[in-house]
Protein backbone atom coordinates (compact mmCIF):
# COMPACT_ATOMS: atom_id res chain seq x y z
CA UNK A 1 0.00 0.00 0.00
CA UNK A 2 2.77 2.40 0.94
CA UNK A 3 4.84 1.34 -2.04
CA UNK A 4 1.81 1.91 -4.20
CA UNK A 5 1.43 5.47 -2.91
CA UNK A 6 5.13 6.12 -3.34
CA UNK A 7 4.94 5.00 -6.96
CA UNK A 8 1.98 7.29 -7.59
CA UNK A 9 3.90 10.16 -6.01
CA UNK A 10 7.10 9.64 -7.97
CA UNK A 11 5.08 9.04 -11.08
CA UNK A 12 3.36 12.39 -10.74
CA UNK A 13 6.50 14.35 -9.90
CA UNK A 14 9.04 12.91 -12.31
CA UNK A 15 7.85 10.26 -14.70
CA UNK A 16 4.64 11.89 -15.88
CA UNK A 17 5.28 15.41 -14.73
CA UNK A 18 2.01 17.29 -14.92
CA UNK A 19 3.47 20.20 -16.84
CA UNK A 20 6.26 18.77 -18.95
CA UNK A 21 4.60 15.49 -19.82
CA UNK A 22 0.85 15.78 -19.40
CA UNK A 23 0.55 19.43 -20.50
CA UNK A 24 -1.55 20.44 -17.52
CA UNK A 25 -0.93 23.81 -15.94
CA UNK A 26 0.78 25.35 -18.95
CA UNK A 27 -0.83 28.80 -18.65
CA UNK A 28 0.65 29.66 -15.24
CA UNK A 29 3.82 27.79 -16.20
CA UNK A 30 4.39 30.24 -19.04
CA UNK A 31 3.01 33.30 -17.29
CA UNK A 32 4.29 33.09 -13.73
CA UNK A 33 7.76 31.73 -14.25
CA UNK A 34 9.76 34.95 -14.45
CA UNK A 35 11.13 35.07 -10.93
CA UNK A 36 12.00 32.17 -8.69
CA UNK A 37 10.34 33.43 -5.52
CA UNK A 38 7.09 34.24 -7.29
CA UNK A 39 7.19 30.87 -9.04
CA UNK A 40 7.72 29.11 -5.75
CA UNK A 41 4.73 30.87 -4.20
CA UNK A 42 2.54 29.95 -7.14
CA UNK A 43 3.74 26.36 -6.89
CA UNK A 44 2.95 26.10 -3.21
CA UNK A 45 -0.47 27.67 -3.60
CA UNK A 46 -1.24 25.32 -6.49
CA UNK A 47 -0.08 22.26 -4.55
CA UNK A 48 -2.34 23.26 -1.70
CA UNK A 49 -5.38 23.65 -3.96
CA UNK A 50 -4.55 20.43 -5.82
CA UNK A 51 -4.45 18.39 -2.65
CA UNK A 52 -7.68 19.78 -1.22
CA UNK A 53 -9.56 19.54 -4.48
CA UNK A 54 -8.34 15.97 -5.00
CA UNK A 55 -10.05 15.08 -1.74
CA UNK A 56 -13.14 17.19 -2.35
CA UNK A 57 -13.83 15.88 -5.86
CA UNK A 58 -13.21 12.30 -4.74
CA UNK A 59 -15.85 12.73 -2.05
CA UNK A 60 -18.33 14.24 -4.47
CA UNK A 61 -17.73 11.46 -6.99
CA UNK A 62 -18.00 8.66 -4.45
CA UNK A 63 -20.89 9.84 -2.34
CA UNK A 64 -23.06 11.83 -4.72
CA UNK A 65 -22.30 11.29 -8.38
CA UNK A 66 -21.73 7.57 -8.51
CA UNK A 67 -24.45 6.29 -6.17
CA UNK A 68 -27.10 8.23 -8.05
CA UNK A 69 -25.77 7.56 -11.53
CA UNK A 70 -25.20 11.24 -12.23
CA UNK A 71 -21.57 10.95 -13.11
CA UNK A 72 -21.76 10.81 -16.89
CA UNK A 73 -23.55 14.14 -17.29
CA UNK A 74 -23.02 16.12 -14.09
CA UNK A 75 -19.40 15.36 -13.42
CA UNK A 76 -17.80 18.30 -15.18
CA UNK A 77 -20.22 20.89 -13.84
CA UNK A 78 -20.01 19.65 -10.26
CA UNK A 79 -16.24 19.21 -10.26
CA UNK A 80 -15.55 22.65 -11.60
CA UNK A 81 -18.02 24.23 -9.18
CA UNK A 82 -16.46 22.41 -6.25
CA UNK A 83 -13.03 23.60 -7.35
CA UNK A 84 -14.16 27.20 -7.81
CA UNK A 85 -15.89 27.23 -4.41
CA UNK A 86 -12.94 25.60 -2.73
CA UNK A 87 -10.57 28.22 -4.10
CA UNK A 88 -12.94 30.96 -3.01
CA UNK A 89 -13.11 29.56 0.51
CA UNK A 90 -9.36 29.10 0.74
CA UNK A 91 -8.85 32.69 -0.35
CA UNK A 92 -11.28 34.03 2.24
CA UNK A 93 -9.72 31.85 4.93
CA UNK A 94 -6.17 32.97 4.19
CA UNK A 95 -7.23 36.59 3.95
CA UNK A 96 -8.76 36.45 7.42
CA UNK A 97 -6.16 34.39 9.21
CA UNK A 98 -2.88 35.59 7.76
CA UNK A 99 -2.62 38.81 5.75
CA UNK A 100 1.08 38.09 5.21
CA UNK A 101 0.38 34.74 3.67
CA UNK A 102 -2.38 36.33 1.66
CA UNK A 103 -0.03 38.88 0.18
CA UNK A 104 2.48 36.29 -0.89
CA UNK A 105 0.21 33.41 -1.96
CA UNK A 106 -3.33 34.63 -1.94
CA UNK A 107 -3.15 36.71 -5.04
CA UNK A 108 -2.56 33.66 -7.18
CA UNK A 109 -5.61 31.85 -5.97
CA UNK A 110 -8.22 33.23 -8.39
CA UNK A 111 -5.89 32.24 -11.23
CA UNK A 112 -5.64 28.70 -10.00
CA UNK A 113 -9.32 28.05 -10.64
CA UNK A 114 -8.72 27.98 -14.37
CA UNK A 115 -5.52 26.01 -14.07
CA UNK A 116 -6.29 22.89 -16.06
CA UNK A 117 -4.13 20.86 -13.71
CA UNK A 118 -6.75 21.08 -10.98
CA UNK A 119 -9.66 19.78 -13.02
CA UNK A 120 -7.30 17.46 -14.89
CA UNK A 121 -6.13 15.87 -11.67
CA UNK A 122 -9.68 15.31 -10.45
CA UNK A 123 -10.71 13.62 -13.69
CA UNK A 124 -7.55 11.51 -13.92
CA UNK A 125 -8.06 10.21 -10.37
CA UNK A 126 -11.58 9.12 -11.23
CA UNK A 127 -10.42 7.46 -14.44
CA UNK A 128 -7.72 5.56 -12.62
CA UNK A 129 -10.23 4.59 -9.90
CA UNK A 130 -7.98 5.85 -7.16
CA UNK A 131 -9.22 5.64 -3.58
CA UNK A 132 -9.10 8.67 -1.31
CA UNK A 133 -5.54 8.15 -0.10
CA UNK A 134 -4.26 7.57 -3.62
CA UNK A 135 -6.06 10.65 -4.93
CA UNK A 136 -4.57 12.85 -2.23
CA UNK A 137 -1.05 11.53 -2.81
CA UNK A 138 -1.59 12.01 -6.54
CA UNK A 139 -2.60 15.61 -5.82
CA UNK A 140 0.44 16.30 -3.67
CA UNK A 141 2.72 14.72 -6.26
CA UNK A 142 1.14 16.68 -9.08
CA UNK A 143 1.61 19.91 -7.14
CA UNK A 144 5.22 19.20 -6.31
CA UNK A 145 5.90 18.25 -9.90
CA UNK A 146 4.29 21.48 -11.05
CA UNK A 147 6.32 23.47 -8.52
CA UNK A 148 9.50 21.74 -9.62
CA UNK A 149 8.87 22.56 -13.25
CA UNK A 150 7.86 26.16 -12.68
CA UNK A 151 10.76 26.90 -10.30
CA UNK A 152 13.33 25.37 -12.63
CA UNK A 153 11.86 27.41 -15.46
CA UNK A 154 12.01 30.58 -13.36
CA UNK A 155 15.61 29.92 -12.47
CA UNK A 156 16.51 29.51 -16.12
CA UNK A 157 14.51 32.56 -17.20
CA UNK A 158 16.19 34.77 -14.61
CA UNK A 159 19.49 33.89 -16.24
CA UNK A 160 18.23 34.10 -19.80
CA UNK A 161 17.05 37.66 -19.18
CA UNK A 162 20.70 38.65 -19.17
CA UNK A 163 21.34 37.11 -22.56
CA UNK A 164 20.76 38.59 -25.98
CA UNK A 165 17.52 37.04 -27.16
CA UNK A 166 16.28 37.63 -30.71
CA UNK A 167 13.36 40.06 -30.74
CA UNK A 168 10.82 37.54 -31.98
CA UNK A 169 11.70 35.01 -29.31
CA UNK A 170 11.43 37.27 -26.28
CA UNK A 171 8.87 36.25 -23.73
CA UNK A 172 6.83 33.22 -24.66
CA UNK A 173 9.03 32.01 -27.51
CA UNK A 174 12.19 31.43 -25.52
CA UNK A 175 10.17 30.05 -22.62
CA UNK A 176 8.61 27.45 -24.86
CA UNK A 177 11.92 26.40 -26.38
CA UNK A 178 13.38 26.10 -22.89
CA UNK A 179 10.38 24.08 -21.80
CA UNK A 180 11.00 21.80 -24.75
CA UNK A 181 14.53 21.09 -23.59
CA UNK A 182 13.36 20.62 -20.00
CA UNK A 183 10.74 18.22 -21.28
CA UNK A 184 13.38 16.20 -23.11
CA UNK A 185 15.39 15.90 -19.91
CA UNK A 186 12.31 14.75 -17.98
CA UNK A 187 11.69 12.11 -20.65
CA UNK A 188 14.75 10.49 -19.17
CA UNK A 189 12.70 9.57 -16.13
CA UNK A 190 10.27 7.43 -18.06
CA UNK A 191 11.81 4.09 -17.23
CA UNK A 192 12.21 5.02 -13.58
CA UNK A 193 9.36 3.08 -12.13
CA UNK A 194 7.77 -0.08 -13.38
CA UNK A 195 4.15 0.71 -12.73
Amino acid at each position, binding site marked *: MLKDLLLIFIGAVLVNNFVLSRFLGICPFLGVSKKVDVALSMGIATTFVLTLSAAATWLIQSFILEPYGLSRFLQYVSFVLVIASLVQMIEMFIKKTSPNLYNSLGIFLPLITTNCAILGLALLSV*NKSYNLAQSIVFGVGAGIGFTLAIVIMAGIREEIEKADIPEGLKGAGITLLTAGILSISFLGF*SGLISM
Partner: protein
Amino acid sequence: MGKSVKLIVALAIISLLSGGVLASVYSFTSPKMEEVALQNQQNSIFEVLPGIESYREFKNDENMIIFEGLDSRGDIAGLAYVAEGAGFQGKIRLMVGLDLDSKKINGYKVLEHQETPGLGARIDEEAFKQQFSEKSLTDSFKLKEDVTAVTGATISSKAITDLMKKSVDEVIKIYGGGK
Protein backbone atom coordinates in the same frame (compact mmCIF):
# COMPACT_ATOMS: atom_id res chain seq x y z
CA MET B 1 -27.72 38.39 4.97
CA GLY B 2 -30.57 38.94 2.59
CA LYS B 3 -28.12 39.61 -0.19
CA SER B 4 -26.26 36.35 0.39
CA VAL B 5 -29.49 34.41 0.27
CA LYS B 6 -30.39 36.10 -2.99
CA LEU B 7 -27.01 35.14 -4.46
CA ILE B 8 -27.28 31.56 -3.32
CA VAL B 9 -30.77 31.30 -4.76
CA ALA B 10 -29.60 32.75 -8.07
CA LEU B 11 -26.71 30.28 -8.22
CA ALA B 12 -29.05 27.44 -7.30
CA ILE B 13 -31.42 28.39 -10.11
CA ILE B 14 -28.61 28.44 -12.64
CA SER B 15 -27.38 25.07 -11.36
CA LEU B 16 -30.85 23.55 -11.57
CA LEU B 17 -31.32 24.83 -15.11
CA SER B 18 -27.96 23.40 -16.05
CA GLY B 19 -28.76 20.10 -14.40
CA GLY B 20 -32.10 19.96 -16.17
CA VAL B 21 -30.63 20.68 -19.58
CA LEU B 22 -27.89 18.12 -19.07
CA ALA B 23 -30.25 15.44 -17.82
CA SER B 24 -32.40 15.83 -20.91
CA VAL B 25 -29.45 15.87 -23.31
CA TYR B 26 -28.21 12.77 -21.54
CA SER B 27 -31.51 10.96 -21.79
CA PHE B 28 -31.55 11.85 -25.45
CA THR B 29 -28.03 10.66 -26.18
CA SER B 30 -27.65 7.70 -23.85
CA PRO B 31 -29.69 5.25 -25.94
CA LYS B 32 -27.46 6.14 -28.87
CA MET B 33 -24.37 5.70 -26.71
CA GLU B 34 -25.60 2.28 -25.55
CA GLU B 35 -26.31 1.35 -29.14
CA VAL B 36 -22.81 2.38 -30.13
CA ALA B 37 -21.40 0.37 -27.23
CA LEU B 38 -23.35 -2.75 -28.18
CA GLN B 39 -22.38 -2.40 -31.83
CA ASN B 40 -18.75 -2.00 -30.77
CA GLN B 41 -18.96 -5.08 -28.60
CA GLN B 42 -20.38 -7.08 -31.48
CA ASN B 43 -17.80 -5.76 -33.91
CA SER B 44 -14.95 -6.41 -31.54
CA ILE B 45 -16.00 -9.98 -30.79
CA PHE B 46 -16.30 -10.77 -34.49
CA GLU B 47 -12.97 -9.11 -35.10
CA VAL B 48 -10.98 -11.12 -32.56
CA LEU B 49 -12.76 -14.36 -33.36
CA PRO B 50 -12.71 -14.60 -37.13
CA GLY B 51 -14.88 -17.32 -38.58
CA ILE B 52 -17.58 -17.45 -35.95
CA GLU B 53 -21.23 -17.05 -36.77
CA SER B 54 -22.60 -16.06 -33.40
CA TYR B 55 -21.62 -15.79 -29.78
CA ARG B 56 -23.08 -16.16 -26.34
CA GLU B 57 -22.05 -14.93 -22.96
CA PHE B 58 -20.33 -17.28 -20.53
CA LYS B 59 -21.59 -16.34 -17.12
CA ASN B 60 -19.18 -16.71 -14.25
CA ASP B 61 -18.91 -15.74 -10.62
CA GLU B 62 -15.87 -13.57 -11.07
CA ASN B 63 -17.74 -10.94 -13.08
CA MET B 64 -15.36 -11.37 -15.94
CA ILE B 65 -17.01 -10.75 -19.29
CA ILE B 66 -16.39 -13.83 -21.41
CA PHE B 67 -18.03 -14.84 -24.67
CA GLU B 68 -18.00 -18.17 -26.40
CA GLY B 69 -17.82 -17.86 -30.15
CA LEU B 70 -19.89 -20.39 -32.08
CA ASP B 71 -19.27 -21.52 -35.62
CA SER B 72 -21.93 -22.40 -38.18
CA ARG B 73 -22.45 -25.80 -36.59
CA GLY B 74 -22.97 -24.31 -33.15
CA ASP B 75 -19.68 -25.62 -31.80
CA ILE B 76 -17.45 -23.47 -29.67
CA ALA B 77 -14.80 -22.03 -31.96
CA GLY B 78 -13.04 -19.59 -29.69
CA LEU B 79 -13.22 -17.44 -26.63
CA ALA B 80 -13.44 -13.69 -26.42
CA TYR B 81 -13.20 -11.76 -23.20
CA VAL B 82 -12.92 -8.23 -21.92
CA ALA B 83 -9.74 -7.28 -20.11
CA GLU B 84 -9.62 -4.10 -18.09
CA GLY B 85 -6.68 -2.39 -16.46
CA ALA B 86 -4.97 0.89 -15.72
CA GLY B 87 -3.02 2.56 -18.50
CA PHE B 88 -0.94 5.71 -18.52
CA GLN B 89 -3.80 8.22 -18.62
CA GLY B 90 -6.76 6.15 -17.55
CA LYS B 91 -8.58 2.87 -17.96
CA ILE B 92 -7.75 0.53 -20.83
CA ARG B 93 -10.32 -2.02 -21.98
CA LEU B 94 -9.51 -4.70 -24.51
CA MET B 95 -11.46 -7.44 -26.24
CA VAL B 96 -9.12 -10.40 -26.50
CA GLY B 97 -9.70 -13.40 -28.72
CA LEU B 98 -8.35 -16.83 -27.91
CA ASP B 99 -8.14 -19.91 -30.06
CA LEU B 100 -8.88 -22.80 -27.75
CA ASP B 101 -7.63 -25.57 -30.00
CA SER B 102 -4.18 -24.17 -30.62
CA LYS B 103 -4.04 -22.46 -27.21
CA LYS B 104 -2.99 -19.22 -28.85
CA ILE B 105 -4.13 -15.63 -28.82
CA ASN B 106 -5.88 -14.49 -31.97
CA GLY B 107 -5.33 -10.87 -31.17
CA TYR B 108 -7.02 -8.02 -29.37
CA LYS B 109 -9.09 -4.98 -30.08
CA VAL B 110 -8.88 -1.85 -27.98
CA LEU B 111 -12.34 -0.98 -26.70
CA GLU B 112 -11.49 1.99 -24.58
CA HIS B 113 -8.42 3.94 -23.69
CA GLN B 114 -7.34 7.42 -22.78
CA GLU B 115 -3.72 7.19 -23.79
CA THR B 116 -1.87 10.07 -25.36
CA PRO B 117 -2.93 10.66 -28.96
CA GLY B 118 -0.13 9.65 -31.32
CA LEU B 119 1.86 7.92 -28.61
CA GLY B 120 0.26 5.61 -26.10
CA ALA B 121 -2.69 5.47 -28.45
CA ARG B 122 -0.50 3.51 -30.85
CA ILE B 123 -1.17 0.39 -28.82
CA ASP B 124 -4.17 0.30 -31.11
CA GLU B 125 -2.08 0.14 -34.24
CA GLU B 126 -1.37 -3.04 -36.17
CA ALA B 127 2.38 -2.86 -35.67
CA PHE B 128 2.05 -3.28 -31.92
CA LYS B 129 -1.04 -5.48 -31.92
CA GLN B 130 0.54 -7.92 -34.36
CA GLN B 131 2.96 -9.05 -31.69
CA PHE B 132 0.17 -10.66 -29.75
CA SER B 133 -1.33 -12.65 -32.61
CA GLU B 134 -0.36 -16.30 -32.61
CA LYS B 135 1.17 -15.84 -29.17
CA SER B 136 1.00 -18.92 -27.03
CA LEU B 137 -1.03 -18.60 -23.86
CA THR B 138 1.97 -19.69 -21.86
CA ASP B 139 4.42 -17.05 -23.11
CA SER B 140 6.09 -14.74 -20.62
CA PHE B 141 4.49 -11.48 -21.84
CA LYS B 142 7.28 -9.14 -20.87
CA LEU B 143 8.55 -5.98 -22.55
CA LYS B 144 12.02 -6.44 -24.04
CA GLU B 145 11.57 -10.21 -23.81
CA ASP B 146 8.79 -11.17 -26.12
CA VAL B 147 7.15 -7.81 -26.71
CA THR B 148 8.58 -4.61 -28.17
CA ALA B 149 7.13 -1.39 -26.80
CA VAL B 150 5.84 1.50 -28.89
CA THR B 151 8.56 4.15 -29.13
CA GLY B 152 7.91 6.85 -26.57
CA ALA B 153 5.03 4.95 -24.98
CA THR B 154 6.69 2.45 -22.68
CA ILE B 155 4.11 2.82 -19.94
CA SER B 156 1.15 2.27 -22.23
CA SER B 157 2.91 -0.69 -23.87
CA LYS B 158 3.71 -2.21 -20.50
CA ALA B 159 0.14 -1.69 -19.39
CA ILE B 160 -1.12 -3.75 -22.32
CA THR B 161 1.50 -6.47 -21.90
CA ASP B 162 0.81 -6.85 -18.18
CA LEU B 163 -2.93 -6.74 -18.79
CA MET B 164 -2.67 -9.51 -21.38
CA LYS B 165 -0.67 -11.74 -19.06
CA LYS B 166 -2.92 -11.20 -16.09
CA SER B 167 -6.15 -11.62 -18.02
CA VAL B 168 -5.02 -14.71 -19.92
CA ASP B 169 -4.15 -16.40 -16.64
CA GLU B 170 -7.45 -15.37 -15.14
CA VAL B 171 -9.54 -16.57 -18.07
CA ILE B 172 -7.80 -19.91 -18.13
CA LYS B 173 -8.56 -20.28 -14.47
CA ILE B 174 -12.21 -19.27 -14.80
CA TYR B 175 -13.09 -21.08 -17.97
CA GLY B 176 -11.85 -24.33 -16.66
CA GLY B 177 -8.46 -25.73 -16.00
CA GLY B 178 -7.28 -28.14 -18.57
CA LYS B 179 -9.21 -26.64 -21.50
